[in-house]
Structures are given as C-alpha cells and as structure tokens.
C-alpha cells in the first residue's frame, strides 16, 4: 500500500478560499508559441469548474443548514473564479478576441469540454457532497501538478486554485464521513450516491490526445499517475465513512470530446439565456 498525504486532514487546511480575482487583461493574441492543444486543454479545466460551480450555486438559499449555504456558496465562488481565470487565459491563447464571458455564454454544449460527473443534476445533499468529494480529490492532484507545470500563467492560476481546493477537500471529506458514519439514512444515501457516481470517475484519468500533448510539453499532469493517488485518498475517507468502494465498472464519458449527458443542455439553456437574449450587450 502506498502512502498518501493526509490531504483531508485539518493540517492541510489553507487560510480559506478566496473569491478575489486577479486583474484580468483583455483577450488579445499573445506569442503564438504555445502548443496547439493548449486551448482545448484550458477549456476542459475551465468547464469542469464552471459547470460544477454552477451546480453548487443551485443550492444557494436551499441548503440543509445555514452554515452549509454559506460553505457551498464559498466553494461555488472559488470554482467559478478559477473558471473565469482559465477562460480568460484560453481566450488569449486562442487569439480570436473571445473573452471569458464569450466562451462561457456563447459556446454550445458540444463545445464544452467538461467531464460528465460535474454536469449531473445536484441531486440530494449526499449526491452533491459525494460528487464534490470525488472531484475535489481529483482537482487537488491535478492542480498540485499544474502549479509546477511549464506554462507560467497556467501554473499561477493553478497555484491559487490549489490553495482553495485544499479547503474544498477538507469540507467535502468531512461531510462524506459525517454522512457515512452518521445515521442509517445518511449512510444509505451516501452509499447510493457513491454507487451511482462511481461509473463517472474513470473519465477523470483517461488521457486523450490533448492530455498527452500537454504532458509531453511539461504543462499538464500524467493523469494515469494521478489515479493511484486519488484512489488512496478516496479509499482512506471511505474507510472512515464506513462506505464501500464500488468495483470499477464500464466507463462512462466523452465530455472532453463534447459528447455530454442530456443534462448539460438544460443547464446551459438556463445559464446562457440572458446573455444570449441580448447579444453584444454589456452587463
């Protein structure tokens, strides 16, 4: 058994998430020396966070306890903030003058590159939290690598996000444990969420051509190498939660190629409606 850093422990807690965005510069073409697949790579990173942040924001005002309304809004803010920085960078890399808002509000579902797991409806609180935990641990390891990557601007965004995600992992893992080792009902709900979501997790670790090119350029992580680290953390938390790790099953996915579940279209219809009803307007 390999050792894992106790990323879910209080010792790794950051000073807390931050909602502040650094100054965004207008999307203008920069030196075209970046590898061609950097743009879709950035979109994938950004869309994961934008879509999940949006799903979390659906809880605002409807959470199970006031403290969780506040905590989930915080995490949603961090994720949308990370997405904004990543989309801004993506727009610059693409060099066609698309701003972060143009990329968020004027792309159709087929152009979104997020993983399936983040676009699924929020479900009950167990579903939201278990999904969040599975993604947080993935995001933790991805950002940890990205912040050491060869692309300076991306590394900077990742470093800022990494500090935030340390808090996210702590929040979601604590709740997974509370639910798993809470009451019979909470245990059953958490186990069901885990069983339902498990088939969406292999997509996180299957590198496509974009990931491989990014890894070759020293920009992106080796996803296959992250899998055992993710496994270790998830296994440890499931142990404390008294939840049973499901067996690996057939992989569901395709989000990185723009092939999504039925749910994304509805989410985007809602998210984009005001912006698209007033093309060219400033807000």
């Amino acid at each position, binding site marked *: 058994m390999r050792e894992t850093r106790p990323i879910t422990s209080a010792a790794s807690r950051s*000073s*807390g*998430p*931050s*909602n*502040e*965005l650094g100054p965004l510069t207008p999307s203008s073409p920069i030196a075209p020396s970046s590898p061609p697949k950097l743009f879709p790579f950035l979109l994938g990173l950004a869309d994961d966070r*934008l879509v999940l942040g*949006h799903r979390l*924001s*659906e809880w*605002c*005002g*409807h*959470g*199970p*306890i*006031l*403290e*969780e*309304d*506040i905590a989930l*809004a*915080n995490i*949603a*803010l961090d994720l*949308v*903030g990370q*997405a*904004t920085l990543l*989309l801004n960078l993506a727009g610059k890399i693409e060099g066609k003058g698309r701003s*972060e*808002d143009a990329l*968020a*509000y004027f792309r159709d579902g087929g152009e979104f590159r997020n993983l399936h797991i983040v676009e699924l409806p929020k479900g*009950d*609180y167990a579903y939201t939290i278990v999904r969040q935990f599975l993604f947080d641990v993935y995001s933790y390891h991805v950002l940890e690598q990205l912040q050491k990557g060869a692309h300076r601007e991306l590394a900077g965004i990742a470093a800022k996000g990494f500090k935030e995600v340390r*808090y996210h992992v702590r929040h979601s893992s604590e709740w997974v*444990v*509370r*639910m798993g*080792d*809470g*009451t019979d*009902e*909470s245990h059953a*709900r958490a186990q069901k969420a885990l069983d339902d979501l498990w088939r969406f997790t292999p997509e996180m670790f299957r590198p496509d051509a974009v990931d491989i090119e990014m890894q070759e350029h020293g920009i992106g992580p080796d996803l296959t190498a992250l899998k055992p680290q993710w496994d270790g953390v998830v296994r440890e938390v499931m142990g404390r939660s008294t939840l049973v790790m499901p067996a690996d099953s057939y992989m569901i996915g395709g989000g990185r190629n723009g092939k999504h579940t039925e749910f994304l279209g509805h989410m985007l219809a*809602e*998210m984009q*409606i*005001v*912006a698209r009803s*007033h093309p*060219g*307007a*400033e*807000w």
Partner: protein
Amino acid sequence: MWRAAVTKNGCRQSREKVMEKQPAATTDEDLNAAFEARIANGETIEPKDWMPERYRTQLIRMMSQHAHSEIVGMLPEGNWITRAPSLRRKMTLLAKVQDEAGHGLYIYCGAETLGIDRAELVDQLLSGRAKYSSIFNYPTLTWADIGVIGWFVDGAAIVNQTVLAKASYGPYARAMIRICKEENFHKKQGYEIIATLARGTPAQKAMAQDAVNRWWWPSLMMLGPSDTDSPNTAELMRWRVKRKTNDELRQRFIDLTVPQAEAVGLTLPDPDLKLNPETNSYDFGPIDWEEFWAVVKGNGPCNRERLQARRDAHENGRWVREAAEAYASKQQRAAQSPAA
C-alpha cells in the same frame, strides 16, 4: 475570503453569557427604575444585564424578524444566480446572497443572547407565526430586478440599520454596524448594475425602468406602516430600540434615492414626487397601504412560495442535520472512552 467563520453551533457568542446579574434584595420596581435610568442615560444593555421582560421579547421579535428577512431575502435574488449574464455578475450575486446568509446567522446568534434558540426562531418562521420583511414577497422577473433590489432594498435597509446601529441593546447594535458595511457594498453593486443597464441597449434600459416601476412602491412600504398605524413606536423609541419613526426613515430613503434615479436617467413611478423648497425634502404621493397589509397578512404575490421554499429546505435537510448530530455524538463518546 471565508466570510462567516462560525463555531460548531453557528454562534460565536456563548449562551453561558445569558445570565441575569440580579442583585438579590431588590424588587422588580427597583430593577425597572434602574434599567430605565440606564436607558435614559444612553447606556448600552448587554446580555448579562437585567432587563424588563417586555424589552427582551420586543428585541427578540425585532431581531428574529430581521434575521428571517435576511434568510427569506436570499430566495428572490438566488432566483437569478443561475442566469446572471456574465461571470463577474454571477460571482458578485452569489457573494451577495451568501452575505445575506451570514447576516441571518449573525443576527440569529445575537437573538440567542436573549435566551432563545435559533431552532425555535426558525420554527416560528416556518410555521408562519413570525414575520419577515414584506418586500421579499414580490417576484424577481428580470435581471434588472437584481440591480434594483440592491439599490432600493439594500438601500432602504441601510437607512433603517444605520439608525439601529445606535440601538440600546449591545449585540444588536454591533451586528448592525458590521452588517451595514456589507449592505453598503450591496447597494453600490446594485446601483452599478442599474447604471450599466440604463446606458446599455434600448432593451436593457427598458428592463431597468420596468424593474424600477415594480419595486419603487414596495420599497417604500418596506420601511413599515405610517407612524399613525405603528402602535409600538413610542415604547420602542423610549427604549432606544428604535431611533427614528418609519415615516422619518421613509423620507430619508426617498431623499437619498431621487437624485440617484435622476443621475442614471430613470423615472420613479410617482407623479407627485417633487422637491419641497421649504423642507428641502421630496413630497410624494399616497402609499397603497391596503397592498402593504395584504402582503403582510400573507397575500402578496410570493408569500406562499417563499415559505414553502424555506420549509422544503428545512425538511429536505433534516436527515443531513441528524447525520451531523449522530456523528458528533459518536465522536464524543469515542473521545470519552478510555480505550481511545
């Protein structure tokens, strides 16, 4: 930033402070006289101090109504988080609604220093026994409503709360000082949304004007019934729980807001609105108090929906709260057992 860092039960202020420092040999009349003298003297009343039962219940009523308003107020604005038209607006709206949750939490904690549980207060809200601000029973129909709510509703709240920051009860006054800082920020953001729409496309400007038209009168009503219909005012003013009458607050809000509307080229929907050169205040047309009382009594456009949304959240969250409690007591037992 991590806004409302809270302890496990949500409250920083310890319930243990709720003890009455009651000298043994004094009568109620003596205590009452001493209390009134302290009030008259401008002193601040703290949780541990003796206070008349009626002062305590009036404060619980005011503080819990205020806290409920913050929480119910999350709903009309939360309605637009998923449709905010830019990433920046999405984040500021999410942060604003989150602030309101923090305000609610903070004021509930303040009310707990008066010897009542948050759970009991929430129960009063969900059962329909407690009131909250009438304004949140109106629907948010377009994105411009988000701007107008920040501008009018947070603006009216600031007018009210700036005065409450000098209230005689220490925990309430301190909560108001802290909360007002954030409400000012909300108002600025709301006004900025409206200013952007007002100089935008014709459709955006029309959207802004429509929202102003719908929210103006309810915002004036939000500051409460006219002084002639406000039976508690005299007593509350004597105790410095209230510092200004509803009509005074309303006039102040109008005087502040009219020039702001003019600055962005929007019209307030009141043909009688005009500057009175003698008072240097704006005269305004009659308020439809029938509408106000209908909304207060539960017959506004969204009363049922708002309460139902809070009840649903509470019911759907029951198993989550039970899980957290069960887990916490397991942990406590484990920590106490010598084997651990």
